[in-house]
Each structure stands twice: as structure tokens, then as C-alpha cells.
């Protein structure tokens, strides 16, 4: 199906384990983003990517790693998960700069770190 998808939708992992959240979009959007959503904070930007092989930090990047070898994929890796990384994670994409900057969001991944 066209659009932006995330997998898995739910994940439970243990402290110290590595976990990767996947994001895939079919629009060929240049920009992709990872946010986390926590009560009282709204959505906060973790990392973003302006194009394949170009990534940069957002507001809360510590403990996360991203890569973007292909335009359509933007995985987010927690190299050693901590309980503070329990959250709902959203991937988003948008067109080139100069548009209205509207971002299209995936359905989210609920991650629990025990």
C-alpha cells in the first residue's frame, strides 16, 4: 500500500538490548523524521534526514542511531535500550523544502523497555 508504514507496531524489549524500528515511505519524499511521544511533551524530534546518506540530530538524539541508505527507508536503532526510552515512536516524511512543510506520519510504534 502507498504511504508511510512502521514496523513493528508494538515491541517489548529488555534493558540493554539493541532494537531497531523500521520506517518505509512510498512517496519518494526527501525528508524523513523520527519523533518520540511522551505524556506532557507532545512529539519531540529525535533525528531527521534531508536525503539518502544525510542525517542530523534533533532535539533528543542521545541513545539513538539512524541511517538512510535508501530514500524510502529510515530505520531507528536503540543500541542499548533503557527504560527512559519507553515511548511511542513516530516516523514522518515531507517533500522538498519550499512546500508547506506538511509532514505525513506513520501509525507509530509503541516500545516498552523492561
Amino acid at each position, binding site marked *: 500500500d502507498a504511504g508511510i508504514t512502521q514496523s513493528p507496531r508494538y515491541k517489548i524489549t529488555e534493558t540493554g538490548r539493541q532494537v531497531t524500528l523500521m520506517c518505509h515511505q512510498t512517496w519518494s519524499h526527501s*525528508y524523513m*523524521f523520527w519523533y518520540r511521544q511522551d505524556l*506532557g*511533551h*507532545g*512529539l*519531540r*524530534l529525535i533525528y*531527521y534526514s*534531508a536525503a539518502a546518506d544525510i542525517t*542530523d540530530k*534533533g532535539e533528543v538524539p542521545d541513545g539513538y542511531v539512524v541511517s538512510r541508505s535508501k530514500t524510502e527507508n529510515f530505520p531507528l536503532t536503540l543500541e542499548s535500550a533503557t527504560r527512559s526510552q519507553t515511548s*511511542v515512536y*513516530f516516523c*514522518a516524511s*515531507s517533500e*522538498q*523544502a519550499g512546500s*508547506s*512543510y*506538511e*509532514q505525513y*506520519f506513520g*501509525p*507509530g510504534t*509503541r516500545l516498552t523497555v523492561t
Partner: protein
Amino acid sequence: AQTVTQSQPEMSVQEAETVTLSCTYDTSESNYYLFWYKQPPSRQMILVIRQEAYKQQNATENRFSVNFQKAAKSFSLKISDSQLGDTAMYFCAFIYNNNDMRFGAGTRLTVKP
């Protein structure tokens, strides 16, 4: 730094009535975009309405309209003829470039039958 403040954590409204959600923001930029996103229990983020800062006319989308006061840095959302399906979290968001969208903490709206 750009910040977005939603001062109403929770609100409720009777079905068919009108409700206004508040949002203020802080920025030194002159050209930017503002958005209201809706997040129903499904968790999907849905764009409700957008406003370009250089446009003085307030945006309208069916039952949703905004009151954009640029000098006051205020961007409220009015929902007319509220429906049960409007029950959701509503997030105000601000962006001035393509890589730094800031969100408010959200307002949980409940529409009562």
C-alpha cells in the same frame, strides 16, 4: 529556541456546540507555518488545518477554523458543531524550515453526547 505552549491539558464540549483550543508560540522568525494535528485513539496523526504566517486571512477547513494573531503569537483552533468523532488529542505545531517542527504538549478534547 522555538517553543509551543498549549495551556489546556483537557477540555470537554457537548455535541453540536463550539469549542476553542488555545496555542501560543515563541519565535523570532517572520515566515513560518502553523499546524493543528488531531490524534484519535488509533494514534494516527491527522492534519486538521494549516496556516502560513505571511497570510493574514485565517484558515478554514469545514467545521475547523483558526484565529491567527501574529503579533500576539497566538494560534487557536475553533471546532464548530462538535461531533463525537472529534474526540481526540489535538497538537499545535510550528515550523519555519524543513527540519525542526515543534509541537505543543497537546489538549485532550472529549465530545460528550
